[in-house]
């Protein structure tokens, strides 16, 4: 890659797979369960977190030398809260329906452990460019899992993708529904999101045995 040095591209690519915040570090599970019943909110959530974490990491990194370490958590919270409110207001202004659907979960990005985790673990000790890459990388890793889970849950649970009826119409019995297929109601319920995440973890660790923890 010409644009990024090898070290920098590692910052982005690592969290996508072998150091994924959800499947490896098991952070940010709550939101992964709550908003992935459909694909669209999953993607919006992913974009919001990419914005908050990318920009937040840069801000914290710029301020890292002037933040007194005793009150750093408060400073971090203020930064996240500001960014989250920006995201929330933008969504309310331009995608009101969607923001209603995501309801409190946009506000709850503040409590997403991935964000505070990256601030503490990375942005406080690295320069702004690297922090930006790390933030975007981790948020992308989070977003990928969200989108995979959202894809399967919406496809199997509601028979749609982005609200578009890809498997036919369940009421008028077209396409798959004409031969007796039915939507899996379990997929819409949060426990199934946990099971889907579990299956992703299973697949990932059986492909890369180095990830399996010893006990």
């Amino acid at each position: 890659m010409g644009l990024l040095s090898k070290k920098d591209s590692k910052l982005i690519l690592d969290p996508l797979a072998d150091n994924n915040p959800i499947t490896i570090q098991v952070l940010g599970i709550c939101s992964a369960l709550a908003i992935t019943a459909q694909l669209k909110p999953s993607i919006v959530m992913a974009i919001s977190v990419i914005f908050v974490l990318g920009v937040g990491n840069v801000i914290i990194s710029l301020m890292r030398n002037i933040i007194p370490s005793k009150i750093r958590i408060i400073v971090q919270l203020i930064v996240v809260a500001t960014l989250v409110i920006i995201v929330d207001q933008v969504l309310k202004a331009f995608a009101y329906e969607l923001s209603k659907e995501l309801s409190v979960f946009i506000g709850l990005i503040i409590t997403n452990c991935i964000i505070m985790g990256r601030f503490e673990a990375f942005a406080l000790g690295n320069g702004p460019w690297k922090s930006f890459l790390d933030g975007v990388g981790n948020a992308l890793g989070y977003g990928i899992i969200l989108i995979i889970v959202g894809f399967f849950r919406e496809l199997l649970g509601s028979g749609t993708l982005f609200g578009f009826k890809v498997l036919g119409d369940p009421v008028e019995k077209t396409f798959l529904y004409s031969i007796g297929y039915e939507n899996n109601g379990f997929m819409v319920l949060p426990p199934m999101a946990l099971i889907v995440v579990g299956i992703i973890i299973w697949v990932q660790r059986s492909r890369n045995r180095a990830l399996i923890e010893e006990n």
Partner: protein
Amino acid sequence: MGLKQKLHRLKEKYKGTKMAPAFNALHTFLYLPNDTTHGGTHVKAADDLKRTMNIVIMALIPCLIFGMFNAGYQHYLALGEINAASGGFFSSEFWTMSNFSLGAWKILPLVAISYGVGLGIEFLFAVIKGHEVEEGYLVTGMLVPLIVPVDIPLWMLVVAVAFGVVIGKEVFGGTGMNILNPALTIRAFLFFAYPTWMSGDKVWVHGAVERAGTPDAISGETILGSLAQNKVFEYDTMDMFFGFIPGSVGETSTLLIILGALILIFTKIGSWRIMLSSIIGALVMGYLFNLVAEWGWISESSKFYSLMSIEFWKHLLIGGLAFGIVYMATDPVTASQTNKGKWFYGFLIGFISVMIRVFNPAYPEGVMLAILLMNVFAPTIDHYVLQGNIKRRAKRLKVKTA
């Protein structure tokens, strides 16, 4: 050369290869294994896992056969083609060839699917992981067709069995390691995934779904279903005891379930402690509800009134409570292991089953959820029983040495 020799030869030939577990499974299923234990203590007992499983299956066969007759009987009775059974358990209206053939036509595919898919996955996992195929699925495969409605679409059963075996059992490490009863995991999956096929007033009698909305519509309401809606039902107590009522395939006949329970208790495979304490638990909860209804704490217009006021012992005759207590609560893997723990475990299953039944009309059959819940708590119960025992003995030791 007989089949036995051929299998022995095959086993030698495939020893150490990937497919070895699959051949060994067939071999040990049909014949005694030809190898002996090396070193250590030998426990000489005939009741290995295979035989244990087969006895449970034998205890289930009466329920299966009865279920076939009942499926046909309920169908023709709802159509008005035959009269209600009137001559006790051996009524001639019930034990007819046409009843049986219709039931077998509907239920044998369920059995075939359940075993085919489940054992297929077991073989697959055994080959991938390189361990022997375990016998655990033999019982699960027989339980599954008995606890689903007769009209369940077969592809749903395929999906549910695959889910139950993989997520309910294999991810934990296979037979003996599972936390939840696999058969109930399969049923719970069906219940939450396809509620229209697992509950309501149609699915329990063959033909009711496809006739819905037409002039020939028939009812497939179960007793619990009618009670949950405060409707009256017209089955008398003996019908409920013999099992001439609509319900899941194999759970209706309390009489045959008692027979199965006796087989399990006599062969010491099912724990009588769990069965007895579950029954006590259900009766206690039922009686408490009876008292609530009797003392007038709830009015007759309350939506809980019918289920609360039904005589407490009738809870054992309707729905799947008896079946669940005898065949599923006693599953040795997922139940409590300690004798004292079994009493708590069983009591809570009965108690919670009736509670869910009454308070949650959306889940008229509480026994499934109650057993799954207690499966999760069984290790905790065992832990406290063990700790209690250790503490008591430690105290005794202190008194002695002091």
